[in-house]
């Protein structure tokens, strides 16, 4: 996790050193459009329209210039979180039976719902990965700030990015020193107590470090606001991209409405 969050110059998706085409677009616009996209896709329910939405996400992937194989693999990783729910749905939603397995009846309605959820989830996660996931965490922080996200939350995120590795190293050092003194974890009180000390020591050190950081910031004239260097520009290509995506979303909504009417 820390590697993902703090990798050297790597976007959050871990496409190391890769300069994707999508990164030239305004990050603020990408975040807003992703939110709009997610809301629209979640509100769709027709399977055909959802398939079209997934197609749109794939088009985004192709457009973004991210390595498709790697990105799709990541999408499949997300699927592993919902796979059990999807497998259970046909058997838990009552309705017209399709087939039976070990005496359990699967229903059409459940199957339909499972496909609907799978399509929605994959379409949204793919869009999030291509538009937002390709952003460096720091850029995302700056963009969120520009989008009027509360300053405290943005600072919290940026400090987390900065210090998660320092804390991990501290943890590793403590663990190593425990190991060097012959500590072998087992199922006994000594182990629990030692882990308790370890976590406690990490907390104490983290608090003390945060106090020292604040002191260092104060010494450099900190007054409660961090001024950010990055400037964002909303350019013509951003406008074109957001217009095109909005048009595609409008088409999806239109298709959904006319499908529902027929």
């Amino acid at each position, binding site marked *: 996790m820390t590697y993902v969050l*703090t990798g*050297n*110059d790597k976007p959050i998706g871990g496409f190391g050193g890769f300069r994707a085409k999508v990164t030239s677009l305004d990050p603020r616009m990408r975040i807003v459009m992703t939110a709009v996209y997610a809301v629209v896709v979640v509100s769709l329910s027709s399977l055909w329209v959802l398939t079209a939405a997934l197609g749109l996400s794939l088009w985004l992937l192709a457009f973004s210039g991210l390595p498709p194989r790697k990105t799709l693999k990541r999408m499949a990783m997300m699927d592993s979180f919902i796979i059990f729910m999807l497998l259970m749905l046909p058997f838990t939603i009552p309705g017209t039976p399709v087939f039976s397995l070990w005496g359990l009846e699967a229903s059409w309605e459940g199957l339909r719902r499972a496909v609907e959820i799978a399509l929605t989830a994959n379409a949204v996660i793919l869009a999030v990965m291509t538009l937002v996931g390709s952003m460096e965490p*720091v850029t995302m922080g700056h963009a969120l700030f520009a989008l009027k996200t509360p300053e405290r939350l943005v600072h919290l995120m*940026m*400090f987390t*990015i*900065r*210090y998660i*590795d*320092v804390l991990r190293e501290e943890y590793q050092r403590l663990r190593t020193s425990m190991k060097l003194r012959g500590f072998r974890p087992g199922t006994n009180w000594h182990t629990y107590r030692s882990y308790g000390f370890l976590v406690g020591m990490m907390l104490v050190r983290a608090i003390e*470090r945060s106090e*020292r*950081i604040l*002191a*260092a*910031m*104060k*010494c*450099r*004239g*900190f*007054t409660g606001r*961090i*001024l*950010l*260097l990055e*400037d964002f520009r909303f350019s013509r290509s951003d406008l074109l991209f957001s217009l095109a995506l909005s048009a595609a979303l409008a088409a999806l909504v239109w298709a959904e409405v006319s499908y529902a009417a027929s």
Partner: protein
Amino acid sequence: MPLLELTDIRFAYPGLDPVLDGASMRLEAGERLSIVGPNGAGKSTLLKIIMGLLAPNGGSVSAFGKRCAEEADFHAMRRRVGLVFQDADDQLFCPTVAEDVAFGPLNLGKSKQEALAIVDDVLTRLGLMHLRDRVTHKLSGGEKRLVTVATVLAMEPEVLILDEPTNALDPVNYAQLIDILQGLDQAILLVSHDPEFRAQIAPAGYHLIERNLARF
């Protein structure tokens, strides 16, 4: 007019024996002083009191001829006094070197363009331009140390205070740090256990011994 003056400082952490009891010192313009003393003698505490991060139980701190008592006074003096912390990781909190160096100037009310110009200027002067866009926590220990000096110098302080700057420096970075410090015209207050380093930067100074400062 001394740049920094401590008069009769008394300080104790709550519930513990006093760390400082009647310590006084002064730093004149252009002067370079070191503070030496055993571990735990209260050197870092003394620096925190100078910077107004800890309030003394008695005595007074003056900077640039003005007595500092309230946070607002210290806020003004911190713009003119730069402190380089013992642990570089405490000081470098921005994602990239450029942003960290720009943090101080931006706090001083400089515009982004001015801040970026200062960043380039300071890094060029210290020969650290190659680190400009590096991620701060991926720097080596020595690089981190040199960058912390840059972050403080970017504010063009009149006094530079260094707390154990030679900790964990290899010979190359050590030599570069000495080079950088010798090229400065600021007054320097140095806390260091390293006799060779003190001899090069600030041979004279104060002994912190038995809760008091003695000139040597």
